[in-house]
């Protein structure tokens, strides 16, 4: 769970973000976590954030929360969006009807948040006392609650008496998982003989009234839904009906039969094209800058008469690898991440899931996998964690195992660089960048295709099953906060990922330099390793150095290309790297052909996930077996595919 700290009125507040949910009836892992945290985590106050544009749906969650805690602040956010849609919310009335404080905010305007903090502060120190209104259930259910409550009151600790009503309800519903967690959390025994006796009585009484296990939950939920509807009618007013006309018009185009999928590919293409064209110049500036510093550093080292091996390890090994990672990888990342985040903030990703769901259904999985796949574009580890949104365990596992079939942000720059050098160079001018874009797009579509294919194969073999239900909400479109997106994606994502890459690149740079410069007999260690891998690599249309780089790049994919370059340079071909275009020269000098480029791109798409992702998979699935399978699946695919292209290429050429 994410958390943050803030200071208000000289008190420190620890804010814990619990997973976004619709309900606390624990239909999914996330909902269970949320419920347990509110119920057993002893929060001082629970803040529920409602979307002012759809209060009614959110009230469901409010009422369920009011059942399990007394101290609640309801925050109605996005008042500006609501205003735009001519929706008015009577906050005072809402507060009266709910019995808890209600605060209106516009999160993008920080000054509206002060009131929220004040209210939280007041509720925490009991300056505002909440008396949450409880849902009135059907009379017969209320009778049953009454029958049980005295027994439950006796069992519950004094400090938890306020949970009586809720626990009675859960007992009547015989929700065993919740009963278990309550018993464990409070160290009590709920299902005593007395209670069991009463429950039998209640069961008979309910059956007499045609209420069975099956429709009991319906009755409970309907009461909540209808109460929400009534409250909504009282506090929300629409000045003009048909307020989501604009969204529907956009949706009609973005999900239309003719344009839905082409527009999706176009969006992706435009993002790549901007990344490719935009990254070139800063890359070169950075590389010039680092080259200049390197010269000065070398000069300095010779001035202080440092031994050759010292400057070798530090400059040619560490410094060079690290600066390579920065100059080659940073610009594309810094452009791609914000662009992708904007698409995310707009609310476009659920539309992608909507458009692609049918393909995923044919692969016997859920359309939500399209969402986790999209998260994978940013970072596969994040994508794997994101798979928690998938309810069916089987489909969740498939989504986890196939997540690394789409290239993450650490692999994009590599794909883009290789595509620009070997494919883009066929054309000139703007054609070059368009050609590179098409090439990268093709690789990604291949990744998506393989995701579907492998999902289908998994569904038919080791993870047999039929597709489960698919319920997805298409949220309203939002105007992204461009400034915030840039800052957030730059600091939270780009710099984080880059930091990780650098911390790996530095030691690996040293190792590579040592491997390349320590000789056993006539050959360096690096050559031994590369020569050992070479025969196999040749079958895949690669060479030993490339394969070595992929293996050393296990901790972070960002460093694969720098390692390849380092190895080639350390091998003795003395090239002075003045700009990024020289990368192509080094590669060509070391025997790269168009086939090598294609296979490197394929293998970049299809090889073992980075160690962070692997560990995340282990954590999320709780098993080494699935981690191992997630390692093998893409790797085997990659090896087979590369061998096929090599075979075909050799046939033709």
């Amino acid at each position, binding site marked *: 769970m994410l958390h943050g700290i803030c200071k208000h009125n000289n008190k420190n507040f620890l804010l814990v973000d619990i997973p976004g949910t619709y*309900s606390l009836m624990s239909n999914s892992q996330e909902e269970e976590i949320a419920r347990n945290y509110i119920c057993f985590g002893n929060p001082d106050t629970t803040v529920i954030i409602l979307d002012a544009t759809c209060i009614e749906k959110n009230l469901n969650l409010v009422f369920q929360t009011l059942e399990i805690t007394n101290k609640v602040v309801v925050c109605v956010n996005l008042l500006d969006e609501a205003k735009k849609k001519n929706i008015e919310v009577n906050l005072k009335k809402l507060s009266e009807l709910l019995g808890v404080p209600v605060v209106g905010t516009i999160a993008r305007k920080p000054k509206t948040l002060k009131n929220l903090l004040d209210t939280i502060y007041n509720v925490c120190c009991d300056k505002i006392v909440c008396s949450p209104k409880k849902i009135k259930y059907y009379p017969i259910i209320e009778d049953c609650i009454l029958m049980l409550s005295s027994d439950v009151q006796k069992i519950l600790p004094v400090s938890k008496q306020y949970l009586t009503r809720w626990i009675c309800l859960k007992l009547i519903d015989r929700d065993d998982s919740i009963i278990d967690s309550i018993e464990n959390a409070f160290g009590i025994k709920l299902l005593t003989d007395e209670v069991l006796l009463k429950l039998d009585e209640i069961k008979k009484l309910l059956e007499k009234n045609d209420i069975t296990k099956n429709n009991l939950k319906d009755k409970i939920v309907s009461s909540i839904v209808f109460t*929400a509807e009534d409250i909504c009618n009282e506090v929300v007013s629409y000045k003009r009906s048909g307020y989501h006309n604009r969204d529907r018009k956009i949706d009609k185009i973005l999900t239309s039969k003719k344009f839905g999928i082409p527009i999706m590919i176009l969006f992706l293409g435009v993002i790549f094209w901007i990344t490719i064209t935009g990254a070139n110049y800063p890359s070169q500036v950075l590389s010039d800058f680092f080259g200049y510093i390197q010269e000065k550093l070398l000069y300095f080292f010779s001035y202080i008469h440092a031994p050759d091996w010292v400057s070798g390890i530090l400059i040619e090994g560490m410094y060079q690898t690290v600066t390579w990672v920065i100059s080659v990888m940073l610009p594309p990342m810094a452009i791609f991440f914000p662009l992708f985040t904007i698409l995310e903030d707009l609310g476009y990703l659920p539309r992608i899931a909507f458009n692609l769901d049918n393909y995923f259904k044919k692969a016997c999985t859920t359309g939500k996998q399209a969402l986790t796949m999209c998260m994978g574009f940013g970072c596969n580890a994040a994508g794997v964690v994101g798979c928690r949104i998938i309810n069916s365990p089987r489909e969740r596992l498939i989504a986890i195992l196939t997540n690394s079939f789409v290239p993450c942000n650490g692999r994009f720059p590599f794909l883009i660089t290789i595509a620009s050098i070997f494919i883009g160079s066929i054309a000139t001018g703007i054609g070059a960048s368009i050609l590179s874009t098409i090439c990268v797009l093709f690789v990604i579509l291949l990744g998506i295709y393989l995701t579907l294919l492998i999902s289908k194969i998994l569904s038919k073999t080791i993870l047999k099953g039929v597709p489960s*239900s698919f319920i997805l909400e298409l949220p309203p479109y939002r105007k992204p906060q461009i400034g915030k997106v840039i800052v957030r994606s730059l600091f939270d994502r780009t710099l984080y990922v880059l930091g990780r890459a650098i911390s790996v690149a530095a030691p690996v740079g040293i190792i590579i330099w040592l491997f390349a410069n320590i000789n056993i007999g006539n050959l360096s260690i690096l050559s031994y390793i590369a020569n050992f891998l070479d025969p196999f690599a040749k079958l895949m249309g690669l060479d030993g150095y490339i394969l070595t780089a992929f293996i050393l790049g296990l901790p972070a994919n960002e460093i694969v290309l720098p390692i390849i370059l380092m190895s080639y340079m350390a091998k003795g071909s003395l090239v002075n790297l003045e700009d990024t275009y020289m990368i192509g020269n080094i590669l060509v000098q070391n025997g790269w052909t168009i086939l090598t480029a294609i296979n490197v791109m394929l293998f970049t798409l299809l090889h073992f996930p980075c160690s962070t992702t692997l560990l995340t998979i282990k954590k999320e699935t709780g098993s080494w077996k699935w981690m191992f399978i997630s390692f093998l699946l893409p790797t085997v695919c990659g090896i087979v595919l590369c061998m096929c292209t090599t075979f075909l290429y050799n046939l033709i050429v």
Partner: protein
Amino acid sequence: MSKIHLTDLPMNKAGKVISLNCSGPIRRRLLDLGIVNKTKIMPVLKSPSGDPTAFLVRGSIIALRKEDASLIDVEI
């Protein structure tokens, strides 16, 4: 008043839910979204391949696959 499956409801025509013919997690999910008896529901969007369909329910847009939507009976 006639009873039909939600899948047979024409686009942009509202119906009223009369029964949910399913149980377990999917029923709970539908209830959580406020799809209970007497709820107004209207198909508003179709995905490029014709399935799933998105419905307007209580102010939000919810996409359902054909298999799941056919479990909901509505009257028009």
